[in-house]
């Protein structure tokens, strides 16, 4: 009986010890992003509900002496139902090719600024109109290969090149998809998604952790129906950090989009945003974001004049620590067309972000 009990104990304990050993080698993190939207005018599309916009669970670890791996699962609320998806799942290597790192798998495409970061890491709550139209409410991810090569060690110039399957464009789940440009058909494209970004980081002369980065990006894709998408963009970020305080943050993106339909019609849009945040202390920061999106293809839509979207967002952020922050924003968006103002959307947004587990990386 005793012997049998010992075997039972060993049976129980061995898997647990192996499990503990495995867990001790993994970096586990969990990020939650809780949002409440309150419409302030009758046309507002704010859902006026408190929802857990996403909960993301991330795991990373070295795979062997050369490769490391990262997997993240995200749960999103979609019209009252929870949808779980794999956000990223890739292997990464920075050793095989000198001055080059690459990743293979599913990931957020390395173009522009916002698309390279998870939404809970953004400096504001809601994506600008141009990002929502050109990319997605969150970001475009796909499966493929991306390389990042240092072209100049002296001037910190990097070139990112990537090609992904292109079967889909946008986000795999359907949460908050207002924009028809997001393609979830999942059919074989005529030309896969291909992209590049040339970027440079310029160090601040007073502080090694302050500086600015600019980038030029291009993304192209021809979908299964022959629609040709071209995106060209410029992104810029400047951070001035004093001790724990992010004293100033300037962030901007400007994108040009061209979409040529299979029947020859062409749509062209120009859009972007400019964001300025002033940090008052290690905890408090006030930000202002201006958005714009101009439709340059009135001929195609049959409208007489170009339409222009404008947006302005004022926000106050409180960062309790690196792991918890809250943000209150007031945003107003509207469209101007043929001398009149249309589609006004005024809303208040409250956001709460928390991170548990592994220490989040401080990305520039």
């Amino acid at each position: 009986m005793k012997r049998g009990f010992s075997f039972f104990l060993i049976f129980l304990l061995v898997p647990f010890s192996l499990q503990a050993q495995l867990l001790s080698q993994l970096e586990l993190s969990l990020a939650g992003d809780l949002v409440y939207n309150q419409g302030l005018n009758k046309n507002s599309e704010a859902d006026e509900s408190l929802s857990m916009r996403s909960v993301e669970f991330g795991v990373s670890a070295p795979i062997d002496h050369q490769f490391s791996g990262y997997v993240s699962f995200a749960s999103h609320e979609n019209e009252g139902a929870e949808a779980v998806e794999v956000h990223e799942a890739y292997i990464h290597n920075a050793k095989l090719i000198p001055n080059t790192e690459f990743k293979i798998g599913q990931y957020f495409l390395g173009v522009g600024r916002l698309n390279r970061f998870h939404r809970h890491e953004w400096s504001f709550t809601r994506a600008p109109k141009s990002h929502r139209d050109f990319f997605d409410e969150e970001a475009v991810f796909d499966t493929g290969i991306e390389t990042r090569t240092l072209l100049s060690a002296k001037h910190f110039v990097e070139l990112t090149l990537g090609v992904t399957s292109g079967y889909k464009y946008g986000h795999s789940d359907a949460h908050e998809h207002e924009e028809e440009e997001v393609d979830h058909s999942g059919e074989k494209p005529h030309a896969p998604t291909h992209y590049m970004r040339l970027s440079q980081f310029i160090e601040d002369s007073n502080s090694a952790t302050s500086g600015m980065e600019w980038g030029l990006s291009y993304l192209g894709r021809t979908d299964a129906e022959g629609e040709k998408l071209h995106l060209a963009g410029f992104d810029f970020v400047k951070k001035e950090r004093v001790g724990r305080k992010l004293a100033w943050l300037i962030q901007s993106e400007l994108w040009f989009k061209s979409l040529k339909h299979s029947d020859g019609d062409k749509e062209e849009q120009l859009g972007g945003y400019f964001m300025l945040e002033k940090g008052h202390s290690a905890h408090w920061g006030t930000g202002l974001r201006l958005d714009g999106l101009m439709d340059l293809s009135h001929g195609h839509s049959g409208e007489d004049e170009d339409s222009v979207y404008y947006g302005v967002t004022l926000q106050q952020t409180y960062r309790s620590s690196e792991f918890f922050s809250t943000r209150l924003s007031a945003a107003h968006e509207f469209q101007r067309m043929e001398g009149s103002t249309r589609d006004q959307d005024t809303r208040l947004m409250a956001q709460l972000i928390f991170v548990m587990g592994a220490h989040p990386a401080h990305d520039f």
Partner: protein
Amino acid sequence: MKILWSLLVLILSTPTFASLKVVTTTPDLAWAVKQIGGEEVSVESLLRGTEDPHYVDAVPSFIVKVRSADLLCAVGLELEAGWLPKVRGRAGVLDSPYCEFGSSIDALEKHEGPVDRSMGDVHSSGNPHFHLSPSYLAQGAEAALVELKKLTPEKSAYYDKRYKDFVERMNTFEDEIFQKLEAINKRPFLQYHQEFTYFFKSYGFKSAGSLENIPGVSPSASRLAQLSLKLKDQNVALVLAAQHAPLATLERFQSLSDISFLRVPLGMVEGKHETYFDLQNELASEILKHAK
């Protein structure tokens, strides 16, 4: 032809001064590694001394510098946990020569038992702010010595001798500063964050605690008020704080408690301190000036 051969022989026989490239996270570590490695090493610090080493972004320039280093040295004890693993991962040097000064010291304020974030910025393996103490910094530099000897074993005797001299110089210097500060170290000193614990220990200061109730969390108004009442009759000499500590909080506490504060650099600042001794002399003279 003979001339060409002679030139070739001359070139090949000329001793080359190919030095090891060492990258450190802070200027203090860079200076310490240089003291040990001498002309056999070239050293560069990622930070310039004006930053809070915990709140740093993994900027692209760090990745470039770390990628080309023969050896990377950090403070350790989780001080750089928010950015250095990211930098090392992206640079592809996770298994390259690496040292943490913190692994060689007998760290203070180690936490027994489980540690979680409700306790604030607690470092389970000990307080990482040892570099303000000359003797502790010298202890920590042993981690660099070990790695340098592994990389160039033929220079081991050279490194050993320089390390021994370095430790002696640091200990002698600490004694000198101790004597300078002896005039005031009987009075209790307060610190904003636990960044001066090793400094206090090295120079025999009596600690009155820290202004922060939870490490890394700004003290509340009630904490400031309670502490000012508690310390009212204790003749506290000064509140010591890092250059980047919040001025408004320190001023508020000063107005409540009538205890003045002094903000000082927490490490060597590039362009300001040529040597670590310059930093220590500046700290000692500033403290002497303000504690009177």
